[in-house]
């Protein structure tokens, strides 16, 4: 069990850093479809920011902010966005993940595709973040039980 670490410097630095880390993570996610980066990397960074929170403020505090159950929901919703967009293409009559068909008010097929993959990256990002935190929290709190897969 990770308990709160009584050190002002670490706490303050974490407080300051975490928003920036998260901002960077979102940047990575949003640019994933045409530059290095993407949902997985961004999601990991986003997850790391929470892990930092756990390290600095202890498990209890972070549990208060984001519960294990909520994380499960996040993970599922994230992956649901991903596969849902794919399935949406199916419903529109194209192949799975063929975003060109999506009815977005954009000029060209290429931009629609770009938007489609962005949606996917966002879904993946949310999912990965949630699962990363899940793994960490699950392992850190082994006395209280819970496994993941």
């Amino acid at each position, binding site marked *: 069990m990770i308990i709160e670490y009584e050190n002002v410097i670490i706490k303050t630095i974490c407080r300051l850093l975490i928003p920036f880390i998260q901002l960077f993570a979102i940047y990575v996610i949003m640019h994933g479809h045409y530059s290095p980066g993407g949902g997985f990397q961004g999601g990991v960074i986003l997850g790391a920011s929470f892990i930092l929170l756990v390290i600095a403020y202890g498990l209890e505090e972070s549990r208060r902010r984001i519960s294990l159950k909520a994380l*499960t929901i996040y993970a599922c919703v994230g992956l*649901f966005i991903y596969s849902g967009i794919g399935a949406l293409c199916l419903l529109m009559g194209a192949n799975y993940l063929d975003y060109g068909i999506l009815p977005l008010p954009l000029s060209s097929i290429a931009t629609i595709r770009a938007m489609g993959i962005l949606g996917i990256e966002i879904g993946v990002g949310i999912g990965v973040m949630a699962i990363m935190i899940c793994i960490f929290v699950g392992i850190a709190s082994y006395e209280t039980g819970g*496994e993941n897969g």
Partner: protein
Amino acid sequence: MNTMQPQAVILIVLIPLMSSYAIPLLGWRWKGSAYFIALIAIGASSVCSLLLLWTVLKQGTIHYHLGGWLPPWGIEYVIDPLNGFMGVVVCGISFLVTLSSKESVEKELPEKKVRFYAIYLLLFTGLMGIVVTGDVFNLYVFLEIASLTAYALIAIGEDGAPLASFNYIIMGTIGACFYLLGVGYLYIVTGSLNIADLAKLLPPLYHSKVVLIALAFFLIGTAIKMGLFPLHVWLPDAYTYAPSAVSSFIAPLMTKVMAYILIRVMFTVFQPSYSIEVIPLTVILSWVAAVAIIVGSIMALAQRDLKRMLAYSSVSQIGYIVLGVGLANKMGLLGAYLHILNHAFMKGCLFLVAGALMYRTGMRNIFQLGMIHRKMPFTMGALVIGALSMIGIPPTAGFFSKWYLILGSIEAQNWVFVAVILASSLLNALYFFRVIENAYFEVSRGHPEGEALIEPNREEVPLSMLIPILVLAAGILLLGLFNERIISGILIFALPPGF
């Protein structure tokens, strides 16, 4: 809708995938819904797989391009008669096993029900993905999905389960990594990951050592994953300690799907002529398989735990499949294909029976079964049919796969294999009749381990467990009687070209 048929290719994977996310979401509110979601998802997949098989047999191979990207750049799902057949086998057995899992999960894992079914569906997704994909790397991803979920599911079992699961993780990871290396080597020389594309690009490169190494990695990797004899060490523990719902799901399907990968690699990615002629690969495989058959049977003979005995018998039955593949003639291969189906039915049935025994009596020692047939007559009837099929008594299904394998061995003029197949029938008879004897006769009276006599009141397992058992048992008989329909209707088209 006209486009529905090809879309079934992706739906077969997508439905269980999305349902596995839906389970925690819905299960949060309604715990009982998990079972039904899983059942409906697998049922829908089954419908898709039947539709696909029907389409494939009528219209020929289906190609499905993910995201509309054409191969070899995009990922392609290909359904030909072989994986159409595999799909139906996996879906059908999964459906029955899932149907029966309700009560035993309720009893063994009441707290973890929701998570159990989420992971369970992911495992199913992985298996189906392996079956439908036409891309070697995508196959690796699905392989890992299936393996990871299997590790997790095995780990939640009783007593030695976590350790068994950990050993499986270590072995399984080596296997999967070897597979990945094989993919890498093929990618170096061809620059392609698409199976059809590879099959086109490889023949001019057959002289290359790299291709040879790639094939070797593929073989070892899949051999570990399917528990072929010297690499089977993870299998007995994993099957024994897993919760009964899990072992009856993994045992009939996991190793079969891995055998499917082996067949796919040997006969589609590489041309049969390469696997057979350039290196004596099939010879090596078939000899290893022959040893596996005998050793598996002998080890099974030494067990007193029913599930463990079945696990070792799986090791030997995998040998049959690989032997058929290794014979590399028409009859042998047909026997191997048929045995994939038959063994899925037999092992499904037997593991479900073992699960039912655990559920009702909590017992697994075969020497303590005394007079259990009074208590559970239908379950024990199914056990007898399954056992007879394992021994290879006609007209059960097990006899006919053996029959084709023997024909194949004779065609290959290899008398040792004939002897091995026949001897293993006898060994099977030895250990299965021991179970039957204990279940039907009052042997236990004099036996030192047989003290725990069961009260002979009639107490069958719940219908949701009994029906799948009986369906599988009836299936064993019907498959045996109508095996020729399956062969001439489906399997003959699944043979690699040139057979």
